[in-house]
C-alpha cells in the first residue's frame, strides 16, 4: 500500500510538493481604496469596505479606517494581514505614549511614528498603503500619505489603494487646480469636501472592481470624530 502511495505521489510531483499546489507567498493583494481631504478646521477621510482576493469578495463590510485619537484617523489597505498587524501594533504604541506622557499623541507625532514603524520593516515590509488624517496643533486639517516602507509627505488631499490612481487626478482637478485659469473657487467647506469624496468613490466604483460596497467616511473637527456610511455599487 505504501509503495503504491509513493509512486502515485511521484507521478504528480512538482518540486518538493507531492501535489500540484502553488508555493507559499507571504503577501496577498486584498484591494481597498482610501482618500482624504484636509481643510480649515476639518479633515475628511474615506475608505471603501470591500475586501477581496483576485476576483473574489471576502467581505463587503471590512472597515479600513481606525480612529486613533479624537483628532487622528488612520486608513490602511493593501495586504490585509499586514494592515491588521500594523494597526494593532500602532494601537499598542499609542497606549504606551498615552501612559508615558499622560496626553493623547498629536497628529504630526503619529505621522512620524507611522513612518518609523513602516521603515522598521524595510527588508520584509508591511505591504500596505497608508493615510493618516487628522488635525494639527493649529486645528488645521492634515493628510499624510505613505508608501509601504514609510516614505511620507504631508498633503492637502490624497488618494491611495486600488482606485487611488483614478481618484487622485479627480482631486487634482477640483482641489489642486494646477494651471486652471477659471476664477478661484470659494474656500473649501466640510460639506463640499464630503461631496467630492462621495463623487470620487462613486466614479471609482464604476471603473474599478476592487472598489465598492460601501464608503465609510470619518469627519474630524475640533468637536470630535463623526462617521458616515454611503452606499456604493455592490456588484
Amino acid at each position: 500500500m505504501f509503495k503504491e502511495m509513493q509512486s502515485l505521489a511521484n507521478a504528480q510531483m512538482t518540486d518538493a510538493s507531492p501535489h500540484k499546489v502553488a508555493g507559499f507567498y507571504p503577501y496577498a493583494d486584498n484591494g481597498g481604496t482610501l482618500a482624504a481631504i484636509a481643510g480649515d478646521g476639518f479633515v475628511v477621510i474615506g475608505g471603501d469596505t470591500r475586501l477581496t482576493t483576485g476576483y473574489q469578495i471576502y467581505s463587503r463590510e471590512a472597515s479600513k479606517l481606525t480612529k486613533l485619537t479624537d483628532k487622528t484617523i488612520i486608513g490602511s489597505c493593501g495586504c490585509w494581514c499586514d494592515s491588521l498587524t500594523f494597526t494593532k501594533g500602532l494601537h499598542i504604541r499609542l497606549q504606551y505614549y498615552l501612559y508615558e506622557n499622560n496626553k493623547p499623541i498629536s497628529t504630526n507625532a503619529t505621522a512620524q511614528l507611522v513612518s518609523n514603524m513602516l521603515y522598521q520593516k524595510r527588508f520584509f515590509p508591511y505591504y500596505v498603503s497608508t493615510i493618516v488624517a487628522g488635525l494639527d496643533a493649529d486645528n488645521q486639517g492634515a493628510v499624510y500619505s505613505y508608501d509601504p516602507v514609510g516614505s511620507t509627505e504631508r498633503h492637502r488631499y490624497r488618494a491611495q489603494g486600488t482606485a487611488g490612481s483614478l481618484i487622485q487626478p479627480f482631486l487634482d482637478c477640483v482641489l489642486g487646480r494646477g494651471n486652471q485659469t477659471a476664477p478661484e473657487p470659494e474656500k473649501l467647506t466640510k460639506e463640499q469636501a464630503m461631496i467630492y469624496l462621495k463623487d470620487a468613490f462613486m466614479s471609482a466604483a464604476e471603473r474599478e472592481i476592487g472598489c465598492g460596497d460601501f464608503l465609510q467616511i470619518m469627519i474630524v473637527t475640533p468637536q470630535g470624530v463623526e462617521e458616515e456610511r454611503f452606499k456604493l455599487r455592490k456588484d
Partner: protein
Amino acid sequence: MSNSYPVNTGSSVIGLCFDDGVVIAADTLVSYGKMARFFDCSRLYKVNQTTIAGCGGDYADYQFLHNLIEQKQIDREANEQGVDLSPRALHSWLTRVQYNRRSKFEPLWTSWVVGGIDEGKPFLGFVDKLGTAYKDSIIATGFGTYMAVPVMRKFYDDKNGRITRDEAIGLMKKCIGLLFARDCSAHNMYEIAVVDANGAEILGPLRATHDWSNVKEHRTS
C-alpha cells in the same frame, strides 16, 4: 521554507449567522492531493459551550492548532473558572498565530471559520494561512466561496437577514449538497456545528444525497 506546502488537505468550510446563533459545516474527507485518503476526519471542533470552529487546508496543521486550543480551554477551566474562551478571543488569537508563522515563512496551511456567541450576540470570523482575517455573517473557504456563498447570500437577503436555527441548518445541508455535487474533493459525509444561547453541539456525521434537482436550481446556464 521549501517545506511550505499542504499534504493531506480538507476541503471547504461554510458558516452562517442566524437569529440567535451560528452554524458551521464541513465534510469529513481528508484528501492526499486528488486522492480521497481519509474519509472519517472531523474538521469541526466544539471548543466550549459558546465557541465552535471549522478548518480547511492541511489536516496536520489543523490537529496541531486543535491541540493548542484544547489546552487553552483546559487552562481556562482550571485557572479561570467560568471564563470560557470566547469566539472573538479565539479568532483574534488564531490571527496572531497564523500571522507569526507566515512571517517566519513556516505557515500553518489552514483556513478557519470561527463561530459562537460573543457577549450574547452571534459571532462569525475567518482566518487564513497569512493571518488575513475578517468578520461577517456569511463565510466560506475554498470552493465554498464560489458554490455556497452566492446561495447563502441570496437566502440571507430574501429573509432580510432573519434566519431561524432550523432554516440555517437546512441551508447548510443544501450548500454541502451543492459542494458534494460540484467539488471533486468534497465528500457526502459531513458534520454541522451549531451554537446558540443554549450551548454548542456537533450534528452528524450526516450523509448528503445525490440530489441533482438541488444543483439545477442554482444553475445559471
